[in-house]
Structure formats: C-alpha cells, structure tokens
C-alpha cells in the first residue's frame, strides 16, 4: 500500500477555531517566547555581577518604553504558560478532561493569567521604581 492511500488524520484547517485549540497552540507559543526571554534574565544577572555602572545602563534600557513592552510581553507569556501548565498537570493526573470542565478551566486560565500579570505590574509600579 502506497503512502498516499493511507487514511489521513483530519487537517487542522477544516476546524473552526475554538477556545480550546487556541489556548493549546498559545501554550506552545508562550513557552517558546518564555524561552527566548531567558536571555533577559541572563543579561540582568550578568549586569548585576559586572557592576553598578553597567547595571544602571541595563536598568535604563529595560525601563524604556520598548523595554517595558518587551518585559510586559515576557511576563504575560510566562504567566500564561504557568497557569495553563497547571491545567496540563491536572490533565496528566487524569482530572478535568471531560468536555464540561475543559471550557470553564480555559476561562479560568485566561482570567488568572491576565489578573496575575496585571497584579505583578501594579506591584512593580507601586514599589515606586518604574
């Protein structure tokens, strides 16, 4: 039997986008974005080890409008990956897989990611530094 005659799994394009599938691919995208953002953590620690002068330069770059935007994006990606990761851990334990719990937990993940991200940024601004 040639390869082309085998039954194919359904193509992704024929499905209407749903919250479950959107969160699923976003989980992976957020994971990759979080990985890329590790560069910022390396830079931060190296700047701290280098000395006060370079640390100040680093703080100025990250404190700029673009720096804050990148940092906000990284926070959101990290927090979303964390929240949906907890959802995945429950799935791995065999819990919450039924259709009636998939939808509510998806909304819980969205709400908690946004709340946690905003909470962190409110905390950052209220400490006076930013």
């Amino acid at each position: 039997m040639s390869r082309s005659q085998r039954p194919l799994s359904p193509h992704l394009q024929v499905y209407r986008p749903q919250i479950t599938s959107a969160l699923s691919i976003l989980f992976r995208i957020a994971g990759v974005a979080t990985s890329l953002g590790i560069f910022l953590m390396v830079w931060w620690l190296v700047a701290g080890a280098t000395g006060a002068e370079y640390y100040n330069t680093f703080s100025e770059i990250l404190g700029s409008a673009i720096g804050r935007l990148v940092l906000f994006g990284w926070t959101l990606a990290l927090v979303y990956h964390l929240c949906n990761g907890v959802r995945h851990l429950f799935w791995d334990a065999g819990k919450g897989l039924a259709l009636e719990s998939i939808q509510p937990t998806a909304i819980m993940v969205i709400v908690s990611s946004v709340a946690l991200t905003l909470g962190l940024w409110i905390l950052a601004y209220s400490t006076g530094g930013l």
Partner: protein
Amino acid sequence: MSMRSHLGRVKGLGSAREGTSHWWSMRVSSVALVPLTLWFVFSVASMAGASHAEFVAWVQNPVVAGLLILFILVGLKHSREGLQVVFEDYLHADSVKIPVMMLSSGAHMVAAVVCVLSVLMILFKG
C-alpha cells in the same frame, strides 16, 4: 531466531528509547517550577527600579541566591527539553533539526553556567 522477548528487543530502541523519561522529566520540572516561578516573578516585581546596591543585597541573602540558582537550573532544563519537542515537531530534515537542537542545547548550557557564575560572583564579591 532470537531467544530474546519482544520487550527485551524493543527496550532502548526506536520510539521506546526515551520518550517516557523525557515526558516524566518535563512533568517533574514543571511541578518544581510552579512555586519557583511564583517566587521569582513576585520577588522581581517588588524589586522593580532597585539600585545596584539593593539588588546586590537581595542576591546576597543565601535563601535568595539558592532559590535563584534552582530557578535557573530547573527553568533552563525545562526550556531546553520543551524546545526540543518543538524542534522535533516542526523540523523534519535531520540536516536542520540536529544542528538546531545542538545549538539550542549549547545555548542553554552557556546560559546556565553564566547565570550561576553571576549569582556566585555577586554572592561572594558584591
């Protein structure tokens, strides 16, 4: 005819090689990262705008330095293994996939060593 059992022949071969251990390793690191990440993001957010002296004093707390090193090592392990799955899913030609995965692993190792050394330098030198 082989005298070995079917299980004995497939163990350590093909798709039975290391899928389970990779999967399990990612679950363990993700469980560890839940508290570590929460600690990290809240600490960093409350340190926003801190001066270099304040940052150094924070890292020099042994609990902070220890948690930072753990976060770095577990986080980078999770990142390396997670990206490996992404590369395996989307890069099909070995001529691309293998160099990319080597480069990614190398970058993660460099990041891990550099981060840990930075924390230790701050801890012992200030």
